[in-house]
Structure formats: structure tokens, C-alpha cells
């Protein structure tokens, strides 16, 4: 599903984002990516979605050779991914419903499909009642749920989240993580970069630890303690 083969990313200013990373994530897995600030977590996710390309090595995602991809193919790779960020990135002038529907319009879904799928996605994240609210009328946790609904509405094979709970309080963070787990149980591969020690420790998922761009450890049912 996701495969890095000896992948290295050197940014244009010479800073190394990732160094000789080889890792494999199978279909249906739930994986945490952890590590200190600057260790390469975001770089890892950016290589998956072709926001950056590896300087050396190979990256395979959902059957695409991301390391050597023509620009016109990128939208199709992105459609096989759902993406969630720390800073939500919702359109402020559209309702919750329209934000989710927007993702379907972009991939040219029919009005009928949109009317069917959007309420389902909003229901899945538990926000059916707030469909008509605008982002600034929603709490941070609610906004992130909308983002999750948007990421899921096109049924992506893989969901990647870069510190999805970074702007949320502990209780809301746990709710969002539980939601991610639920999404994973429905069959979606989930990859989460995070700093949340306690959540990682309690969820007992696979944990990939990065350090200065290199793979430090990769443990099934891991915790933050495995780092030491």
C-alpha cells in the first residue's frame, strides 16, 4: 500500500528531511509516526502525497510510483488519499455541508451521489446536526471532524493526518483519535504523525519513530517508551 525504498529527501537549502528510509505500510494498518520536532514526520507525509519528491530512492503509494510521476497524474494519486492537517483548512465562506460537498464536486461526482454521500460522511464524524454551520461557528474539534468527513467522503484507500490534534484539548484529541480508529476499522489505512504521547501509549498501534530523518524504530503495538 505504502512503500518507501531507501528514500532520501534533501531540501533545496541542503537540510535533510529524510535519510535512507525504507518502510512498508500494508493495507488496513493504523500507524503512528512519532519523533522530535524536525525529525521528518511531515516530510514523510509530504512524500506520500507528492507535495515533495524524494531526492533519492523510491516511494510507492496505492500503486503509483510517486518518486517519478508526471504532474498530470498527481490529482489521481491525491484522490486515493484523504488528507488532514493540524490547521483544519476549511473554506470559511462555505457551510460544513458545502465544505464536504466541495471535495466531491472536484472529482466530478453527480448531484445525486453528493446528496447521498455527504450526509453519510457527516454522520460518521457525528456532525449531522451542524451541517449548516459555517466553520467559524464550530469548535476546533468540530472543525477537525468536518475535515475528516471531507477527507473520507470520496472513500480514499489511505488517510494521512499531520498532527490532527495539535490544536485541540486532550479530551477532544482522544475523540478525534477514536474517530480515526473507527475509520481504520472500516478498512481505511490510517497514517498519523503526532506528538501525543499519552494517546500513542494507550492506543497500542504500530509506531514508527524517526530521528533526524532516519528510522529509529518500528514497533507493532508500540508506545512512546520504545523510543528510549
Amino acid at each position, binding site marked *: 500500500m505504502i512503500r518507501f525504498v531507501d528514500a532520501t529527501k534533501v531540501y533545496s537549502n541542503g537540510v535533510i528531511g529524510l535519510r535512507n528510509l525504507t518502510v512498508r505500510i500494508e493495507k488496513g494498518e493504523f500507524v503512528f509516526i512519532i519523533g522530535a520536532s524536525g525529525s521528518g514526520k511531515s516530510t514523510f507525509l509530504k512524500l506520500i502525497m507528492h507535495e515533495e519528491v524524494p531526492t533519492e530512492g523510491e516511494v510507492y503509494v496505492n500503486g503509483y510510483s510517486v518518486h517519478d510521476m508526471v504532474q498530470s497524474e498527481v490529482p489521481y494519486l*491525491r484522490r486515493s488519499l484523504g488528507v488532514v492537517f493540524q490547521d483544519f483548512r476549511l473554506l470559511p465562506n462555505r457551510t460544513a455541508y458545502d465544505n464536504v460537498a466541495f471535495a466531491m464536486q*472536484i472529482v466530478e461526482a453527480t448531484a445525486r451521489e453528493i446528496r447521498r454521500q455527504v450526509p453519510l460522511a457527516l454522520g460518521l464524524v457525528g456532525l449531522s446536526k451542524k451541517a449548516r454551520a459555517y466553520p467559524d461557528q464550530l469548535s476546533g474539534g468540530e472543525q477537525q471532524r468536518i475535515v475528516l468527513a471531507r477527507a473520507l467522503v470520496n472513500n480514499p484507500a489511505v488517510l494521512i493526518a499531520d498532527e490532527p490534534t495539535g490544536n485541540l484539548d486532550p479530551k477532544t484529541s482522544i475523540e478525534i483519535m477514536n474517530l480515526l480508529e473507527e475509520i481504520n476499522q472500516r478498512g481505511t489505512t490510517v497514517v498519523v504523525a503526532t506528538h501525543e504521547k499519552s494517546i500513542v501509549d494507550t492506543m497500542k498501534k504500530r509506531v514508527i519513530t524517526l530521528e533526524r530523518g532516519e528510522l529509529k524504530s518500528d514497533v507493532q503495538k508500540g508506545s512512546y517508551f520504545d523510543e528510549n
Partner: protein
Amino acid sequence: MKIRTMKLLIKEGTNNVIKNKLMSFASIMTVVATLFFLGIILLIAINITSNIEAMKRDLEITVFLNVNATNYQREEVVSFIEAKKEAGVITEYRNETKEQMYQNIKESLNDDSLLEGFSVDNAAESFYIKLADPNNSDEIITEISRFEGVNNNNGIGYGKEELDKLEGILKVFNYIVMAVLVVLMIVSIFLISNTIRLTVFARRHQIEIMKYVGALDSFIRWPFIVEGLLIGFIGAALSFFITSQAYQWLQGVINAILANLKLSTLRIMEFGPVAFRIFIIYSIFGIVIGGIGSLLSVRKHLNV
């Protein structure tokens, strides 16, 4: 691309124009100004050309006979002119006899003492010939000058050369106008591309999200292109309206002046017959200016 997607993209582009009121207005106004200028120049050129044509058709070849031309020599010239008239080369002609010429001179001088020594016998008969096609004038003049009875020294006159010179000047004028027009178009394109750049900037978050969700490049680009086309077309339509009003007003004023000056051959044309042509030219120019303007901006700033 699917129909519903096209509808969506056109709606987005239209919304951009409305949301971006001030810059849209400024861009539309530059298009209006550019096209108005284009239209006025075009209409001036059309009028000058048509008036030159009319003047040419109105031109007469004047042929003076020699003072002592014989009756036979006179008949030769008349039958030549009649034959050409039969053939349709000459549309009409009139002649002025010696007596008429004498009378005319007498009247215009208004003082008999100046006429001393000048009698009917010193006057010459003349012919005034109108041609169906002014371009045949050289040929006719050469043929007619061969006749014995025709005064070849200063007997044949025709004003075509002057009009040809006028046409030459008109051509130079056209080139200058074209140069100014190109500059104006570049300014309009620049302004439109700037407007679109602002829209691109205002919507950079949306564009980013669209890219993450997997929007095709064309899907991201089209609303901006629609925006440019729309600005161009609105500008064209508005400019057409202003041009037609201004022209019709001017036409009335200038025609009245011309009538007062008794310049009956000169006329400012009606707007009606050229309206459709002008509208098409405006639309094409407007759409091209708008399209290029937005394409430039989208390519440079969207980076998709």
C-alpha cells in the same frame, strides 16, 4: 469535462467577478476604453474610405477642346465619349459650349472692362465626364488625349491624384493607430491579468485545498479563465453601447455641419449597417484580451 462541472466552473468564475467588484470594475473600464478607442478609429477609417470612394465617383474628367477645333474634330471626341457611354465605362457627361464658357467668365468677372479683347471666338468648348470606375481614368485620359481637337497642354484635368495622396496618408494614419492600439491592448491585458492575480491570491487557500483533494489543473484554472472572459465580454458590450450612442450623436452633429457647408458629397455613415460588424469585432477583441489576461496570470501564479 462534464456539463455539471462546466456549470459549476462558470458559476465560480462569475462569482469571482462579483466578489472582486472594484478590480473587476477597473478592468472592465480599461476594456471599455480600449475598445471605444478601437471603435472610433475604425469608424473614422470606414467613413474616410467610403467618402473617398464617393468623391472618386463624383470626380469629373474635364476635357477642353482647342479654341480653333473644327466641327469634325469635335464630332470625333463626342462619338468617342458616346461609344464609351454605350459600353458603360462612362456613366454621364455634359458639355459647355464656347458661348456658355464666355457667359460664365463674364458673369464671374462682373466687370466688362476686363473682358476686352476676349470674345466668344477665344473661348473653348469643354466636356465633363463621369466614370463608372474611377480606376479607369488613366486609360480614358490617354485615349482622349490622342484626338486632334483636344487641348493637350492644359486641357485635361482630373482630381484623382489628390485623392490617391489622401488615401496614402490614411494608410500611414492606420499604422500609427494600430501601434497605439497594440499598446492599449497590452495595458488592458496587464490590468486584467492583475485582477485575476488578486483573485488567485484571495483564493489561494481554496486552491490549495482543491489540490489536496485531487482537483485536475483544468478544474482549478477554468473559473479564472471564465472570470477573464467575462470581464472582456462585459467590457465589450458596454463599450459597444457607449460607442453606438456617441457615434449616433456625432453623426447628427457632423452631418448638420456638412449640410450647412454645402458639402453634399461628404456624409457620415449610418451606424446601423456597421453595428453588427462592430459588435463582433468588439466581442472578439474583448474576449481575446480577457482570455490572454487571465491565462497569463493563471499560468504565472497558479502554478498548477
